[in-house]
């Protein structure tokens, strides 16, 4: 792929990731639509500068690292008997706060579902909702990784 193509792809993928309306010329990217909150993502990109040229990637990495820790806590709480719903709610609340940092919309929605079950004291429902959270979480990770890779490639192509 030549530089221009790469850059275009990056731009398209980016807009697909954050915009509601999928780009018609890239039907495959429809899947990425609505994953991230535009405002938040754009703001993160704005923070990128010479000092931190890969700031967004840095933040995403940090997010996923911390998510692992929170997920572990949630899993432990789900496994324990009796299930401590207050604790579960607390952990999920922390995670939800974390998702707001990168603006992960779909993940957040699943978190809200989880909260409903939690409030209702439905352990099974919580477990199911948690699976969905993890799924969305992973999907987003893949999308973002691809995005960053493309971006890097486009950046490298520029310097060539």
């Amino acid at each position, binding site marked *: 792929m030549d530089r221009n193509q790469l850059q275009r792809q990056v731009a398209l993928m980016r807009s697909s990731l954050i915009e509601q309306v999928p780009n018609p010329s890239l039907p495959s990217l429809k899947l990425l639509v609505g994953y991230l*909150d535009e*405002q*938040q993502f754009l*703001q*993160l990109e*704005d*923070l990128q*500068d010479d000092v*931190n040229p890969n*700031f967004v990637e*840095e*933040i995403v990495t*940090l*997010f996923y*690292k*911390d998510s692992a820790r929170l997920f572990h806590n949630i899993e432990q709480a789900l496994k324990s008997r009796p299930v401590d719903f207050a604790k579960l709610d*607390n952990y999920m*609340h*922390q995670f*939800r*706060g*974390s998702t*707001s*940092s*990168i*603006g992960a919309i779909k993940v957040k929605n699943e978190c809200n579902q989880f909260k409903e079950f939690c409030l209702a004291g439905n352990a099974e429902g919580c477990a199911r909702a948690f699976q969905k959270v993890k799924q969305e979480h992973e999907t987003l990770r893949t999308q973002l990784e691809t995005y960053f890779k493309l971006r890097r490639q486009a950046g490298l192509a520029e310097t060539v």
Partner: protein
Amino acid sequence: MENGFSSPRSDAFPAGLRVLVVDDDPTWLRILEKMLKKCSYEVTTCGLATDALRLLRERKDVFDIVISDVNMPDMDGFKLLEHVGLEMDLPVIMMSVDGETSRVMKGVQHGACDYLLKPIRMKELKNIWQHVFRKKIHEIKDIENHESIIEGMHLTRNGSDYSDDGHLLSVDDLTSVRKRKDMEKNHDEKDFSDASSAKKARVVWSVDLHQKFVKAVNQIGFDKVGPKKILDLMNVPWLTRENVASHLQKYRLYLSRLQKEKENSGMKHSDASPKDPPGSFGSIHQSDVVNSSYLFSGNSLLPRTVDPSSHEDDLKSIISEPVMEPKRPPVNLPDSHKTKNSQMGFNRSFQPLESEVDFAAFNSGIPTKSYWGEVPDVQFGQEHTPFVHLENGFTKLPLPDPLNHVNADSLQSIPCTAERGISGPTKSKPPCPEYGSNQISDPSPKVSILDPFPQSSKSNIVNHQRALEPIYPCTSSLTTQASCLSCTADIESAQRDVLNLASGSSSTLASFEDDLQVLFQGDSYGDTLGVRNLGFSDYIDAGLINEVPIHLYDSLRFGYEYPCDMTEYAILDQAY
């Protein structure tokens, strides 16, 4: 170290603002750090509340503001907030993903100066410096007020002219701030930098120190507590009364907050319920005061029996009156005198605020604006501070210069501020240095009577206003009320507070505190008042009160049924 820290910072303010960010979420911590750095702030991050508290305690005066998340594993964000408020007196901003009203309310109740919702936007962080600025302003005012009162007393005794603001301020840095010769906007910047560089050593209230404080308070009895008593009991040599006073205020707010949470009762007291002034300061009802003030302003001390309950009406009527003829009953001079006296008297009676300053302000104000009570509606509207009215009144009356001079002479004995006041009309500089700082800022109807300076363009008025403000806390509040209905609650509470403070009555402490809580953001207003009161009485006893002061007393008495002799009249004669 403080100097080293603050000087460069103050020049470029708000750049270089020293922020401490506390959040258990590492992702957000990193984002916030980056955002704050982009705002040119100096950032320190902390993942744990306990770490943050330790940092704050260890390194005193190293941070300007704290931003903290509400939900943290090791300590509740609200607890941290309270600790910081009580011990370090720093502005604290809370953040959370949860924006529920009850949570936000809790934050405010615990003393947060702002509550941000996550995800946080850059623009929200850009403006956090205002909280630091605001606090500085109030601190300065408090200091100034305190200082000027003391100074005023000294000056009066010596009969020296109040020509140099610097005299009033014992803090060197504040001097330049006080020299508010011009009330221009750049004044604000200058003031701020002065303020920030003013090394008022910030007292860090360690747990130990706070314990001593609480013990002393409990020993004295919360009702009878006062900064001086506490200070004496605590027996901490390096602690000043002022430190205690401001901490006491915060403590009161804290307690009242706790109480509120328990009671959850409405705190609004109708301040309009006039009580018959028992002839003592404490009991003077706000409305009385207001009425009295109006009396003074409009009628050169004509003892008007204003119905307290309708003080508002009075206010309105007064306001709507055309500039009251300075020539009311006897002569202009007498009026101005009276007005001044009345004003002064008010100060005296209320005592809470810097009486000296007030006098000065009055003096100066009177010549030009003698309508104390009269405040053109328009002007009031502009002001959102309780004292607006007063100010307007002042501007309204254009007294001939000679009067000013006369007043000046007679007021010689009055604190320096008076001097200034005389030249005041022509000067944009506020006669009361303490108020000077007000100019800079903040039109907020803070009760800090010391400070409600509306951003008036009329320097004279402002000057006067300032002077007036402290003097007639109640009055102004009332007037403001009339004109600023939206501030009603505040004013009422402020008034109440003032009264309470003035009288040092503990009975009203509860409501007072509530009000304070609402009105003050950790100001040491109450404290200053307390301090002032003490100072004030000293002042009076010293017999510093000149003819003029006596006049004021008399004037006040008119309104308050004070048993005074009509020295005022005697003085008036002199004036003639």
